[in-house]
């Protein structure tokens, strides 16, 4: 060939690399990733860390003086900490312990919150594990669909689920209608702990099932076969080989469930009322009463507890992470065996019972909501509730909640926040999948929005950027709607990270290195090689971001106060207090819109790793 390598045969040959404008672009490209990273850091700082900082400051600065008095009062208040308050007030631990096991113990708001979170975690694991067993170990028609359906609760707006459960458990709810039909008396589940726990299980059991199934599927059949060949029976092989690999995933599901349910808001607000208030609900109430210092202090206490649980889990995870690649998964058994043994029958019976319970838990709220939306006060089918929404849209006063602005706002906020969350999430995924010192810290800082309550973020944004900040003599204030988009983006981008990062992590490094050796800048490799290969994860992340925004209630309800920046979930909440019918009708609208984003996940996303 005529072209020898440059510099040897033809040392004076013109450089066949790019000319000047192209070189300039190369330089920009080279900086692109750093620029995006800086932008991500800036967004996080302005709309997440700064607001949280504002709240923190507010909790320790009273009338211009730094004090821990608010915290001290909080910790010693039995209203918040129950018997534990006596511990903080200086009483001996034994007396407190005795009071705790006594019949008339008081848990306080914080204690109750932890208690219901623990119960919800147990319920979620109990409901999630059989599903994981079914999905990981059995083959049946529709298995893949069912597996992908386990992400539905994630994208379902919590306020909508709450409405669904109100429609199920309410005095005239489907449950009591059914019980009445078979001659049983009405049961009162509204505003009970049971209702809250069931609703939490609805949300979090699929999460447990999902992470556990993934771990179970990554158990190498070869390892089990080796154990069997060495003399272990099926149960022993399960306990020695399978269980240790599945167990960390269960723990992860449990830890996340605890954190999520500890910070629960819409479900308790709708199902528990203020009688069964959790910390988050109380923070909201305090903030609404303009008692910001106490609200901030309480939010900080909540944050500390959440982060402690999450931190403990992450420490555990760091020590127990097993990465298995290229495994041959355990073969699945047919759900309907051709020649069933008695053991087979028993297993299937158990799974059948479980299926019934699961169907009740997962389908009841949706079905009830849809039913309630087309049922009139007299029990007859009617479209009155939808008509009400249309009428309200036509004739509603300015101060009233109208449906179309809610739908429009939800869609606009969702699109805008996804546009922000997507590049942020991708950048964080890239930055956290590379190996370097301090990566863990970056990971923690970037993933904190996962664990921080929406009320806290909303409150911080409201008190800071929305009310206005003085910067060098300029008053900077952002519109409530911009703050909502920011809050949604911050809530959504960790999901983008979680769907994109596992794919990036599993990419062969030599692909990236090959591309770089061929002349591609780091940003170019991301565009040309990495993102196309993890595309399903990116699309799924985008769909998550949209769905999270669509369903986000907590921060939105704080920020939408007074403004007309209300979204569908906020509209539902405003309806729910007065009349259930329109709330359920609005819920169905939300269900349809959110369902579309699920379709996007399914259609474009396909299979992806991660949550």
């Amino acid at each position, binding site marked *: *060939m*005529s*072209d*020898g*390598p*440059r*510099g*040897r*045969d033809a040392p004076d040959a013109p450089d*066949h*690399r*790019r000319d000047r404008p192209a070189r300039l672009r*190369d330089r920009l490209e*080279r900086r692109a990733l750093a620029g995006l990273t800086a932008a991500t850091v800036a967004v996080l700082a302005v709309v997440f860390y700064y607001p949280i900082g504002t709240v923190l400051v507010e909790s320790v600065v009273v009338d211009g003086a730094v004090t821990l008095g608010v915290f001290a009062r909080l910790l010693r208040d039995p209203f918040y900490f129950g018997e534990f308050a006596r511990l903080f007030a200086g009483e001996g631990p034994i007396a407190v312990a005795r009071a705790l096991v006594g019949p008339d113990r008081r848990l306080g708001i914080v204690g109750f919150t932890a208690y219901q979170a623990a119960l919800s975690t147990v319920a979620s694991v109990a409901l999630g594990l059989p599903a994981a067993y079914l999905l990981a170990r059995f083959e049946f028609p529709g298995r893949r669909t069912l597996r992908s359906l386990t992400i539905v609760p994630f994208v379902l707006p919590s306020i909508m689920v709450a409405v669904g459960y109100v429609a199920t458990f309410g005095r005239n709810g489907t449950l009591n209608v059914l019980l009445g039909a078979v001659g049983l008396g009405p049961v009162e589940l509204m505003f009970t702990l049971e209702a809250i726990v069931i609703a939490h299980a609805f949300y979090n059991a699929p999460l447990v099932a999902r992470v556990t199934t993934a771990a179970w599927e990554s158990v190498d059949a070869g390892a089990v076969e080796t154990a069997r060949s060495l003399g272990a029976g099926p149960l022993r092989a399960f306990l020695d080989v399978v269980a240790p690999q599945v167990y960390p995933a269960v723990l992860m599901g449990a830890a996340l469930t605890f954190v999520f349910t500890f910070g629960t808001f819409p479900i308790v607000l709708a199902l528990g009322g203020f009688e069964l208030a959790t910390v988050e609900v109380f923070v909201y109430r305090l903030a609404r009463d303009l008692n910001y210092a106490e609200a901030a202090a309480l939010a900080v206490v909540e944050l500390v507890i959440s982060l402690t649980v999450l931190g403990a889990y992450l420490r555990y995870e760091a020590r127990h992470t097993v990465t298995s690649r290229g495994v041959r998964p355990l073969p699945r058994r047919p759900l309907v065996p051709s020649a069933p043994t008695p053991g087979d029958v028993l297993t299937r019976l158990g799974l059948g019972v479980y299926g019934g319970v699961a169907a009740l838990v997962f389908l009841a709220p949706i079905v009830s909501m849809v039913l309630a939306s087309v049922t009139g006060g007299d029990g007859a089918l009617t479209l009155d509730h939808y008509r009400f929404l249309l009428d309200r849209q036509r004739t509603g006063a300015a101060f009233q909640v109208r449906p179309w602005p809610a739908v429009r706002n939800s869609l606009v906020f969702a699109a805008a926040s996804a546009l922000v969350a997507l590049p942020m999430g991708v950048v964080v995924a890239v930055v956290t999948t590379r190996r370097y010192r301090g990566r863990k810290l970056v990971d923690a800082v970037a993933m904190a929005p996962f664990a921080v309550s929406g009320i806290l973020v909303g409150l911080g944004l409201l008190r800071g950027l929305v009310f206005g900040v003085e910067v060098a003599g300029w008053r900077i204030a952002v519109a409530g709607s911009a703050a909502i988009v920011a809050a949604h983006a911050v809530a959504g981008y960790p999901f983008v990270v979680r769907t994109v990062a596992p794919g990036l992590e599993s990419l*062969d490094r*030599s*692909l990236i*290195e*090959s*591309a*770089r*050796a*061929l*002349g*591609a*800048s*780091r940003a*170019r490799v991301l565009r*040309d*090689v990495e993102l*196309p*290969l993890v595309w399903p994860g990116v699309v799924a992340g985008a769909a998550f971001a949209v769905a999270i925004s669509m369903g986000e209630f907590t921060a939105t309800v704080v920020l939408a106060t007074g403004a007309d920046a209300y979204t569908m979930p906020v509209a539902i909440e405003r309806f729910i207090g007065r009349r259930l019918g329109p709330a359920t009708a609005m819920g169905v609208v939300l269900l349809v819109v959110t369902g579309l984003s699920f379709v996007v996940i399914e259609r474009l996303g396909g299979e992806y790793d991660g949550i």
Partner: protein
Amino acid sequence: MGSERDDASAPVAVELEGVSKRYDGAVAVEGVDLRIREGEFFTLVGPSGCGKTTTLRLIAGFEEPTAGTVRFDGRDVSGVPPEGRNVGVVFQNYALFPHMTVGENVGYGLRFSDPPGGVSPAERVRELLDLVDLPGTADRDPESLSGGQRQRVAMARALAPGPDLLLLDEPMSALDARLRERLRLQVRGIQRELGITTVYVTHDQEEALSVSDRVAVMRDGTPEQVAPPRTVYRRPASRFVAEFVGDNNVFEGVVAGGESGDGDGQGGRNGTTGGDGNRGGPGTVPVDVGGTTLHVAVGGRDDAVNGVPAPGDRITFCVRPQHLRVGRGDNGFRADVESAEFLGETTRVHLGWGDRELVVRTEDPLRGTVAVGFDPANAHVISVASTADTS
């Protein structure tokens, strides 16, 4: 063999000076000095963990050295990212982009630089696929190719932008032995045709010997010997090299004669020992190996040691299996046959001599105890330590 070229006058294309790389205290590469010449096929060979791949990655720019300097054509390239170094890299697993066709893979580098020779990118891709003997595969999916074909596509992709330097990181080790032999000839042929400076990493010493102009045998992060394959094979510079490159028998002993020897009194120069009738010739020294005296030629052109070892010096030398003759009575010893491997063309016989393990090559398997000996000229002295050094 027979293809190697050691043109010391060629300009230096890549220079490593005092290059070290540590990861969290663990040393991957330590004080490496290498000069790779223009157009040379240079191979880094050594056992796993010897630092050969790290050295290649330092040259490619995937890693930055913790100490020392890497120069291309005399220019310090520290801080220059891989995309600025104009290198072509082929990995063991080929690393073809699975979402691109074969043609898109080969053409990827042409998105960032114009094809050399003034041809269009499409033309260049066709040229390269012809070069690696895969014409007409441009629209194929990489997944549809065999391992050897993928390896050639990876080669074409690396060469397409006309790199100054080709870096091959164990490109054959995922292939079966026969295919590997054929491919390495092809790689060598392409390298010759383009005259491109090439750095090749392999753990397979046979591969290293067969294709290289020069070989660097690495151990524990440092090259132990850098020389043409024949020299490395015939005149290993260290016991490690002697034993890593091909089968070898390494002996350690003490130069006999003088005050510690049999009273010859003349030093080692023309030393003979009469005891068992062994006879050294001019240029040999008698060496006492575990009580047996063996004659070893010294002062050869490529010997690691210049000058003549003095009596009492500790000496290490080696004799290749094919030079250790079974049945030779003089300059030898009797050893026990321990096992034999039939290799087809020859049989590799393992012998025990005292606590030493030796290897010889024979036509037929052996049994019992056999006499083995060697021509002193076929012994290569690896090192000599004078008594003054050791005491």
